[in-house]
């Protein structure tokens, strides 16, 4: 069993994030950690984020105390890794080359910050609160345990303390901070349109067979185990990029870096007008049932503001689907630094030629927005065709 000590650093959680404040440690020295464990909460200008560790091992040393604001890339703690612990840990959730990326290189729209509603979560008796909130609570004599947090994960922020002190009026459920989210969408999309030379392709596919397959599959299942078409669409994209890697990865410092891992950013609409695209990890390796369970979990946590750092930073391609009441086609704007976005329109009943006969069939329009610095329309057309082919063979998913 070999052991190594590695740094756990302040992650980059957005294109323009330069520094973050360590709000809270959820581990202490000598604690065992495994890949994917949430070890710290970091507050950025856009809200608090749960930060995961990508090493398995033991916490050797805490280097930064709660309350400290440090630049992206600053070592926060040291982790003693071990091959033993590794073997006991979970399957890797992010590809090594992505984890090892230089600080600041992983930029993502800051749309995931957001402030959720909720009760303060207590970890071992501690209340989740920002340093500013703690300081204020101390100075004005407010008991944090009695304050309802509006930060992610129910973390208490300064405003919550002020509100709690000022009034004891009707509790109003707080939603995500849609104003902040709108600003983040604006920044990311403006950057995309400014920097990425998009090209767009569109194709229609007859998906009657997969609809029938889905109805039959779900027919035997209780609601909790049913699949949605969105899960099939996401899986088809993940399998298709295995054959077309030029659509999966990042444009950084003037060149394309393909990603071995396939993490699909999934556009999720937030009630009231927000949008975020957190990542589902290693989609190509998940069964449809696993993928559907992850998707349900992700949508629920996203809407409640409980999102993890890896889900923000590591999407390698994005899928956007307008669902059953949307429009026929959508032309996406790529999330920088990704290089492609696949859009699924609403499945519509349409007249369609089957052989020489016109029949009523279920027709789906799939679109591709891709970065012309990385790929060309010809490859894009083949990529779209591959997605369509996979969607016509549900057994292959």
């Amino acid at each position, binding site marked *: 069993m070999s052991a190594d000590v590695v740094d756990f650093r302040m992650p980059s959680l957005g294109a323009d994030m330069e520094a973050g404040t360590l709000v809270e440690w959820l581990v202490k020295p000598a604690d065992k950690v495994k890949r994917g464990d949430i070890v710290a909460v970091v507050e950025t200008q856009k809200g608090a984020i749960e930060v995961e560790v990508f090493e398995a091992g033991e916490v050797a040393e805490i280097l930064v105390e709660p309350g400290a604001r440090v630049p992206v890339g600053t070592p926060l703690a040291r982790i003693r890794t071990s091959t033993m612990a590794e073997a006991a840990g979970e399957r890797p959730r992010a590809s090594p080359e992505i984890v090892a990326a230089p600080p600041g290189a992983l930029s993502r729209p800051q749309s995931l910050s957001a402030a959720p*509603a909720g009760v303060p979560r207590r970890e071992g008796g501690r209340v989740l609160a920002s340093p500013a909130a703690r300081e204020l609570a101390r100075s004005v004599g407010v008991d944090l345990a009695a304050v309802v947090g509006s930060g992610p994960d129910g973390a208490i922020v300064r405003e919550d303390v002020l509100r709690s002190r000022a009034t004891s009026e009707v509790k109003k*459920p707080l*939603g995500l901070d849609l104003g902040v989210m709108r600003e983040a969408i604006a920044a990311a999309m403006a950057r995309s349109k400014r920097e990425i030379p998009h090209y767009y392709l569109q194709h229609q596919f007859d998906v009657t067979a997969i609809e029938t397959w889905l*109805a039959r599959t*779900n*027919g035997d299942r*209780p*609601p*909790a185990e*049913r699949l*949605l*078409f*969105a899960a099939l669409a996401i899986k088809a994209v993940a399998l298709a990029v295995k054959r077309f890697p030029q659509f999966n990865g990042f444009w950084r410092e003037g060149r394309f870096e393909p990603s071995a891992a396939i993490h699909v950013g999934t556009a999720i*609409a937030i*009630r*009231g007008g927000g949008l975020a695209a957190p990542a589902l990890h290693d989609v190509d390796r998940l069964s449809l049932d696993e993928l559907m369970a992850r*998707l*349900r979990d992700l*949508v*629920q946590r996203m809407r409640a503001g409980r999102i993890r750092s890896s889900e923000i930073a590591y999407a390698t391609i994005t899928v956007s689907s307008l*669902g*059953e*009441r949307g429009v026929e086609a959508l032309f996406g704007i790529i999330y920088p630094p990704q290089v492609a976005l696949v859009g699924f329109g609403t499945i519509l009943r349409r007249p369609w030629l089957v052989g020489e006969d016109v029949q009523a069939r279920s027709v789906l329009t799939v679109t591709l927005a891709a970065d012309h610095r990385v790929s060309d329309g010809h490859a894009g057309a083949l990529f779209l065709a591959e997605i369509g082919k996979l969607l016509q063979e549900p057994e292959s998913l």
Partner: protein
Amino acid sequence: MNDTEIRTIFLEEIGNIAPESDSRKLDPAADLREALDLDSMDFLNLMTAIHRRVGVNIPELDYPELFTLDGAIRYLANQLK
């Protein structure tokens, strides 16, 4: 279980999915998906919650009968008879 109880449970579960909605203002004949902006994931979560709460396993083919509040109460009352 009477209609009032079913209605209360159904509205509670809608409240969990669309917390900002005001059930008092909900038109019982309106399509819930339109009125409350429910997507397919929301609707599946609603069906899952109803299954858990009252034990009725609603097949996909019957979903359209539950697109309105009135329809949902009628459907569940029939199933729970």
